[in-house]
């Protein structure tokens, strides 16, 4: 970790610093806006780095490095993120601690290059699997740092691939990051998944349906068991809230500002901000919504309901609060828009 306690850094610089501090030895990447500066920043760090022919090779390169027992990662966005789901799928199947930093951009296809929250479903459930991966959504640069550290640690500790799901805007802004608060984070050491002193025969394809089913059941059970150690969220002003705003990432930060302002105007509104999207803090959300005081749930996001789909899917069916949505895919959301939206809502 750098010696200066407080530094004024970009998101890209924060990611590079966090990966270095996490003990990452290598990065494989293909340039795509808005994550190019992570790749170039890693080159500058002097650590091992390969600019690959595409994101497919980047992802599988990370898989190979991880199999050899090295902490390794990649970073990408949009169309590159799609290609990375190929290798991520293998990482999910073989439980390889691959770490991926996603800087979301507008989609579908090439879309725009800076900002959106349209890669939530892809990050959480991409590939031909069941979403057995860890997905973190930071709302500012301090969290971007701490969640990148967590992604490496928890990927290696629990042996699931991990995604830090941020966006181009967060990566390009500068904020003060106080590194003092992270001094106590300890690194989980990597292990050699293909050891040199014994023979491993490791399948990734099964001839019998039953064989695969057993693997899937084990992966799911493990995922559920570790969920309580991983899930995290932020809640604010929920004790007497009648309206619950749910938002993640940078929109979560904006929504928090809106909640503070609305409270000044005596509107009983609270915030639930999932920090882990996989595993999702389901029980905590159920608990808050189950207090019965919550009459309206508003999901605020820069997409046409990708977070809302996860929330509705995870929320206990007996919870009868009605839903409303503030959705602006491809656009940033200002606190004033959230305030206006909430004030116009009928409970």
């Amino acid at each position, binding site marked *: 970790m750098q010696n200066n306690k407080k530094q004024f850094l970009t998101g890209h610089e924060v990611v590079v610093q966090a990966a270095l501090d996490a003990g990452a030895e290598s990065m494989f990447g293909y340039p795509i806006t808005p994550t190019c500066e992570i790749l170039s920043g890693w080159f500058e760090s002097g650590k091992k780095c390969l600019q690959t022919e595409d994101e497919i090779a980047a992802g599988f390169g990370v898989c190979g490095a991880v*199999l050899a027992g090295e902490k390794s990662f990649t970073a990408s966005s949009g169309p590159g993120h799609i290609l990375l789901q190929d290798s991520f799928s293998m990482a999910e199947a073989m439980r390889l601690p691959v770490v991926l930093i996603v800087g979301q951009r507008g989609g579908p296809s090439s879309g725009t290059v800076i900002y959106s929250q349209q890669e939530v479903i892809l990050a959480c459930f991409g590939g031909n699997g069941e979403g057995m991966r860890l997905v973190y959504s930071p709302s500012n640069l301090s969290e971007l740092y701490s969640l990148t550290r967590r992604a490496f640690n928890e990927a290696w500790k629990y042996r699931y691939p991990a995604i830090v799901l941020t966006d181009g805007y967060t990566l390009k802004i500068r904020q003060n990051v106080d590194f003092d608060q992270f001094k106590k984070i300890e690194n989980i050491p990597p292990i050699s998944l293909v050891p040199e002193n014994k023979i491993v025969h490791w399948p990734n394809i099964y001839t019998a349906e039953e064989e695969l089913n057993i693997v899937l059941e084990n992966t799911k059970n493990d995922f559920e068991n570790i969920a309580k150690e991983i899930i995290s969220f932020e809640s604010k002003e929920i004790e007497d809230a009648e309206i619950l705003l749910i938002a993640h990432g940078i929109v979560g930060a904006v929504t928090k500002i809106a909640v503070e302002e609305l409270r000044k105007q005596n509107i009983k509104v609270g915030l639930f901000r999932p920090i882990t999207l996989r595993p999702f803090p389901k029980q905590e959300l159920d608990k808050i919504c189950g207090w019965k005081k919550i009459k309206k749930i508003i999901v605020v996001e820069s997409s046409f309901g990708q977070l809302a789909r996860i929330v509705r899917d995870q929320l206990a069916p007996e919870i009868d609060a009605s839903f409303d949505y503030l959705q602006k895919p491809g656009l940033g959301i200002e606190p004033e828009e959230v305030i206006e939206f909430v004030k116009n809502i009928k409970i």
Partner: protein
Amino acid sequence: MSENLAMPIGRQAKFCPGCGHPIVLMMLQRILKQHNLEAQAVLGLDIGCSLLAWNYLPINTFQTHHGRVVPTMVGFKRARKNSLVIAYVGDGGAYAIGWQSLFHAALRDEPVLVIVVNNTVYGMTGGQSAPTTLSGQKTPTSPDGFTGNTMYGPEILHQVSNPEAFIARTAVNDPKQMLDFLDKAIKTQQAGHFALIEFLSFCPTNWRTKGIDTVKFLEERLKSVFKVGEIK
């Protein structure tokens, strides 16, 4: 042949009768054993018939995805430089779905050994045509005979490879040459360079050939199109 060619570690082959894969794998094991490299060797498998080698040899082995074994082994080698990495792949995985990665691994002179088993078809999925399918060859996806161009992977890769790289083609009915090329390929990786050997192989199941006709198809058809030897 010597005891070195006995069935490795007592596993029963899951390959079809008459398949060329077990011959390539046995030669590989023989050369690794000869150089005392079994502990250092790591065998990555593509998907297709190659995947059946997953528990066949007494060396570290894992399966990957179709077309993705080369970039995986590139990553492995970069992380563990003292390993001897072998990317084991069919002609479809190497020259179609995995071509981009294979091409760039050769271009960058990545120190990996790529073993391409060329039987001119997608064997595992029912014998569909591959980049290596011969002109006029009938397959489920070329029922009237293949009309496309046939791909010469090693010859193309030679054009972009480092002069120190080793690129060659042999055939599964020439054990002496197979061992010679494997030996050179291993030494090439140890010297820090890219190596690729294409093995012309049998696929009686999809060629729909029996007995001597299988050997004849390789000897007379494949070898008339694909030139064996070091590509220089």
